[in-house]
């Protein structure tokens, strides 16, 4: 359960075996481990990955404070997990589809969802779920594990239609591996050999339930074996390692070698530094200092140190990056806070065509609003 147990003691191993030690490229100080190979990314790509991880961390802190001020509703923080989120989305090609949960804000952002759209549902605006046509990101999944068979199905559709350059990446939590939908989705993925990559963000907790109470399996990755899938464990606080295993998995999904199966199941080992959501108080069920061990492996420090060591990053550039992040987030917050919706919107898009009965209900509500004014609708209980 501790960072030590899960990550620290192991030596680098690139054997993609479900119970092997997690794959790592950077040590806790950002040095490249012996025998590890840094993925083929340009300096600019590495820098922009670093910037996105930092942006995600800053976004998280701002969102938490907005929630505390009552300006947005319940928010699921991702601090500690943004390195893995960003890296997985960097491993995608634009045409690939992403299936996120309520926590993968950074994964969505990197794959093309703007920050204001991410904030809008937190202000109660469904508009945030509507993404532009060229952004291949599903609206976030809240009912746990329901995305898994759907992601499999989309990948299956690509395969059946001979769309060999498209793949699907599906996120899920450690808790999600207990739901039936998870097992059904993975089993189908194996049987129909579809171009899908499943990433389990094992952040050690499902709200208050620790990973070792979620499953008696030694590792989460080993579950893949029962369905004939390759299961891989990766240090989820090492963005370079996560990028590498995900990119390899996407490549394999699209163009498997020999009799290799297309789907891959990746267990990305992380830690939820903060609360499950802003409505949760982790001090009730876990030790504060547990997070500290993991913070020593923090993805921002590790990647930052690596980039500095390589001479790609210096103080000046870091300051420029920080300013850019600040400005970007300010702008997104402004846009989200000024966004409005209309009561009519809840009657729209229920069907292709609005049924007469629904139209009647909408008219009835509008007549009442007209008669009494919107103030009368401000709170169910006065």
């Amino acid at each position, binding site marked *: 359960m501790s960072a030590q147990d899960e990550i620290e003691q192991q030596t680098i191993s690139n054997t993609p075996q479900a119970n092997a030690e997690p794959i790592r490229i950077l040590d806790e100080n950002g040095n490249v481990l012996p025998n590890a190979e840094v993925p083929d990314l340009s300096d600019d790509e590495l820098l922009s990955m670093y910037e996105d991880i930092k942006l995600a961390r800053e976004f998280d802190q701002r969102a938490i404070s907005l929630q505390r001020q009552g300006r947005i509703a319940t928010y699921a923080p991702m601090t500690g997990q943004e390195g893995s989120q960003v890296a997985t989305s960097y491993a995608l090609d634009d045409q690939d589809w992403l299936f996120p949960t309520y926590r993968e804000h950074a994964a969505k952002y990197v794959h093309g969802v703007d920050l204001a759209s991410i904030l809008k549902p937190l202000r109660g605006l469904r508009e945030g779920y509507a993404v532009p046509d060229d952004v291949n990101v599903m609206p976030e999944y809240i*009912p746990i594990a329901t995305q898994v068979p759907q992601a499999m199905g989309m990948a299956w559709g690509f395969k059946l239609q001979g769309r060999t350059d498209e793949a699907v990446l599906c996120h899920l939590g450690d808790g999600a591996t207990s739901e039936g*939908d998870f097992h059904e989705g993975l089993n189908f993925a194996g049987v129909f050999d579809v171009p899908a990559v499943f990433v389990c963000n094992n952040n050690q907790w499902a709200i*208050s339930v620790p990973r070792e109470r979620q499953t008696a399996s030694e590792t989460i990755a080993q579950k893949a074996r029962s369905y004939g899938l390759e299961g891989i464990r990766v240090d989820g606080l090492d963005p370079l390692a996560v990028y590498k295993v995900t990119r390899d998995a996407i490549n394999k999904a699209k163009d498997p070698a020999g009799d290799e199966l297309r789907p891959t199941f990746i267990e990305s080992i992380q830690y939820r530094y903060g609360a499950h959501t802003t409505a949760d108080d982790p001090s009730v069920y876990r030790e504060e200092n547990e997070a500290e061990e993991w913070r020593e492996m923090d993805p921002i420090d590790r990647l930052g140190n690596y980039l500095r060591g390589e001479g790609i990053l210096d103080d000046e550039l870091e300051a420029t990056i920080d300013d850019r992040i600040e400005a970007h987030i300010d702008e997104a917050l402004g846009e989200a806070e000024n966004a409005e919706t209309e009561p009519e919107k809840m009657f729209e898009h229920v069907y292709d065509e609005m049924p007469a009965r629904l139209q009647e*209900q909408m008219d009835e509500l509008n007549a009442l609003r007209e008669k009494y004014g919107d103030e009368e609708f401000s709170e169910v209980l006065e």
Partner: protein
Amino acid sequence: MSSATNPETETKTDRLTLVEAVRDGLYTEMSQDDSVIVLGEDVGKNGGVFRATDGLHEEFGENRVVDTPLAEAGIVGSAIGLAMTGMKPIPEMQFMGFMYPAFDQIVSHAARLRSRSHGQYSVPMVVRAPYGGGIRAPEHHSESKEAFFVHEPGLKVVSPSTPYDAKGLLTASIRDPDPVIFLEPKLIYRAFRDDVPTESYEVPLSDAAIRREGSDISVYTWGAMTQPALIAADNLAEEKGVDVEVVDLRTLSPLDTETIVDSFKKTGRAAIVHEAPKTGGLGAEVASTIQEGALLHQEAPIKRITGFDAPMPLHSLEDYYLPQAVRIQEGILETVDF
């Protein structure tokens, strides 16, 4: 009036909110009956995401207040098996919107084991779930799908609207030999306090409660919607001199036909208020029950004031979706002036 506002003065009472009364009901019953256990997601160490099982883990230990893996079908399916051994499991579904993985276990098995086994087996289980809107929760956290369960023969469906009833109905549900779906209106989990007896008592699963007596119209409702219904009734009494009777159904299945029909015979007019979408909602069942039992007393069309036939919106629009006092008043006036 129901006993909600008149708890026996001699008994020791606590001032509890509805969610505290649920917890107290669990505590009291678990203290008296070792076969009662609680299981679900985050019910143990965390005390439940709404604190409905707060402190029970420390009190009764991890074998009676069980944090399970994240799997609703597993939770309810295993509870059915536990019930077969003579235990009285109380599975918690974290939110009603997350009950669906357990739907098969509930409707295909819990509801039917008695009839399939010709009465040899039963499933004395209480599935608790917070339900309903109004608390600015994320998507899928605000649904009211009681009609799904009311539609299933063999299940009892209960929804308290006061702290007193919450404990009494929960106690009766735990002791009931049949499976009960116990729906807790989370909008009023902490809205007000009641005197709740510390010892155990039952509110029977057979009786609706008259929350306010009146002669002009009967308003049928349950759960959180009793509150805006009572507000609307008070406003109309004051502003328009309309005398509204508010009937809290409390047990949604089986319905208390007698109380429903008797109230209507007195008033001749009815409105039904619920959060769930109008089409296929329980309002239709109440309206038919009235017409079957008291058609010749009817003086106006029966009005349904409900959620719309659209998905529950995200929270910025939920106040437009849920029946408000203003919508309820308007519906009542339309019926009274017909």
